[in-house]
């Protein structure tokens, strides 16, 4: 990963240019328009979840990618911020204070910031393993407290609120999902922009320096500890904002928002997307949310596939999806990207078929082992067959084997094309 980390975003020197503002403008327009394309309620629910996850993942990457700190208990900051927001929501409702709902995430953020300040004051002394361990300990501690401190965390059933309290905000009462969507999008763009700008400030740049070589940064006169502390606090703030949005969207928070499972999944999302680039976690959040919603509808085993995908990413693509995309940048710059298209098609289509075939075999084994007695039929890829017959197994094994054989045969071609695409015309390879 260090390689991927070193290749972190290159800052364009100077002021804001149209080119550097372009991704922001495009994504804003896309975010505003997309509810008109996918109008169904479930789509908007997914998009809300995605947007919250994006903020959380970006905040997490402030630590992991930009600061080189691996936190195993980061769900706590989001969760505590969310809990706080629900309490504020209920408090405002009880005393009918004039606090408009769109400002609520600020409270979540401030509370996340406060908690991060306390924890960060002792956990950021060291990076690496010590930091990871302290974050794990604190995370477990607070997650366990949720059952004990019932006043704040609400025990087993959690705390719930009602977002439609009080006065309408410019006539919007936040009754519908779509209104909440635009609220979340507003916060998404704002916090993503702020986080991006943070990574451009001297503190943000120093965070990268401390990540890569703390000793050298110290020699330059910067305190590695304080730099880490600032990153940690900023990350805590944006996690709290994500928690506040979560509270608004779901109106309930439980112990599940704090525990290690949640902390682990945000690590997974961020790493899958790619920690070396600012936009990596965004891709990760989108892909993971889609994967988990689509796959979990299709199969019981989706976590197995996600786990395998994660492990494969760590082993073979430590830069994550963003790293894979950016790998192709030089080829594009040289205008050689066309050379890659044909070999890619020839290799990756069999590879995809092979992976799907493996998944099919796994599903068949699972059905054979755990299916109800007498239930011998299963439907896979739009075909229904008898699992206990031999023929489907033979077909599946044959297709999978052939696909992988084809993939293996074509790999040299891809490698060759890759080298040609990445070398200057006329240069000796």
């Amino acid at each position, binding site marked *: 990963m260090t390689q991927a980390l070193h290749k972190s975003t290159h800052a364009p020197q100077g002021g804001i240019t149209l080119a550097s503002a372009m991704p922001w403008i495009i994504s804003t327009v896309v975010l505003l328009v997309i509810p008109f394309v996918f109008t169904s309620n479930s789509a908007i629910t997914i998009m809300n979840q995605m947007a919250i996850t994006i903020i959380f993942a970006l905040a997490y990457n402030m630590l992991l990618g930009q600061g080189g700190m691996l936190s195993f208990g980061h769900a706590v900051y989001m969760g505590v911020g969310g809990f706080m927001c629900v309490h504020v929501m209920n408090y405002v409702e009880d005393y009918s204070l004039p606090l408009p709902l769109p400002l609520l995430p600020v409270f979540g953020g401030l509370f996340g910031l406060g908690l991060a300040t306390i924890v960060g004051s002792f956990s950021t002394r060291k990076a690496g*393993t*010590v930091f990871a*361990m302290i974050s794990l300990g604190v995370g477990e501690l607070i997650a*366990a407290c949720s059952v*004990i401190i019932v006043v704040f965390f609400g025990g087993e059933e959690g705390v719930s609120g009602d977002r439609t309290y009080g006065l309408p905000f410019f006539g919007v009462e936040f009754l519908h999902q779509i209104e909440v969507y635009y609220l979340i999008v507003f916060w998404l763009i704002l916090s993503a922009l702020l986080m991006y700008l943070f990574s451009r400030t001297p503190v943000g740049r120093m965070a990268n320096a401390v990540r890569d070589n703390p000793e050298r940064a110290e020699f330059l006169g910067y305190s590695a500890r304080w730099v880490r502390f600032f990153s940690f606090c900023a990350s805590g703030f944006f996690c709290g904002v994500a928690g506040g949005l979560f509270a608004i969207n779901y109106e309930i928070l439980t112990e599940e928002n704090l525990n290690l499972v949640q902390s682990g999944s945000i690590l997974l999302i961020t790493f899958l997307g790619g920690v070396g680039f600012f936009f990596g976690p965004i891709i990760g959040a989108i892909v993971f949310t889609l994967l988990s919603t689509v796959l979990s509808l299709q199969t019981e085993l989706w976590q*197995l596939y996600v*786990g395998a995908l994660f*492990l494969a990413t760590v082993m073979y693509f430590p830069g994550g999806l963003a790293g894979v995309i950016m790998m192709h940048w030089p080829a594009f710059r040289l205008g050689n990207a066309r050379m890659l298209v044909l070999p890619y098609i020839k290799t990756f289509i069999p590879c995809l078929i092979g992976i799907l075939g493996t998944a099919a075999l796994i599903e068949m084994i699972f059905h054979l082992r755990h299916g109800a007695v007498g239930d011998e039929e299963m439907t896979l890829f739009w075909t229904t067959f008898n699992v206990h017959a031999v023929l489907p197994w033979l077909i599946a094994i044959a297709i999978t084997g052939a696909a992988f054989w084809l993939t293996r045969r074509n790999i040299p071609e891809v490698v060759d094309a890759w080298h040609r695409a990445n070398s200057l015309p006329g240069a000796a390879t």
Partner: protein
Amino acid sequence: MDLILVNLIDGLVTGLLLFMLSAGLTLIFSMMGVLNFAHASFYMLGAYFAYQISLYLGFWMGLLIAPVIVGIAGAGVERYGLRRVHQYGHVPELIFTFGLALLIEEIVQFIWGKNQMPYSPPEILQFTLFSIAGNAIPAYKIFMICMSMGIFISLLFVLTRTRVGMVIQAALSYPKTVEALGHNVPLVFMGVFGVGTALAGVAGVIAGPVLGTFPGMAFLLGSIVFVTIVIGGLGSLWGALVASLLIGWITTFAASYNVAMADILMAVGFEQPIDLSESAWRDLWSLTLPQIGPILPYLLMVLILVFRPYGLFGKRDV
């Protein structure tokens, strides 16, 4: 007094079980600088393999074969997984083992399902060995104690008295020099990883029948094992032993003595509010020791990391 004795034995069982896991983990850490998140997953694999074997060959063959399989699996993970990820640095290694832990849990669920397995102690050990003031001490508990003690002593013997142990100890401090002397250090690493995971496997085999063999067992014990080796000092075998026993006893005693916070507060001189449900401090009043027992180890770890990052016996910073 009798209750104390019973708790001492129970705590010893838990502590020694923890030690079997933490010993391997701490050895692996001091060799490779990697905290193996998946360590408890190997413990779970041990229990499941032993259960599967015990269906056909009985408990004792399970005890013999399952750790070997787990050890081989562990060595394989080191050889084909960790060694590859090692080039990217320590953080990806941690992430790798974390992902491995997730994957192993999913695989176990895939093969054996989500329910608890009917894995039970062998018939020959299902009797009450002796009883203390009416509290029966099953023979299996004593067997667990003897087993873990035996492993600890043989581990100590191998590490300090044999040639292999010397090479391992040397490779811990000066891997380059040991390599220059003609020893195959990567092989030593792989061996240590294999033996460490096999130890976790043994722990799984003997703990599975009492603590239950189910997919959540790794998760339940996993983070406690970390806490143990951090408290004991990373890389220190004695530290791991002391911390394991400490945690074993703390959690056992906390679970069995029902000290209520209300009593303490009243003894200090606070007045209990009449209507508790309205008070913002009601949680403080209703707090009991068994309730906070499970989080005591984490509290201890955070305190240790803040005030003495070396751990109790550690020589180097984490």
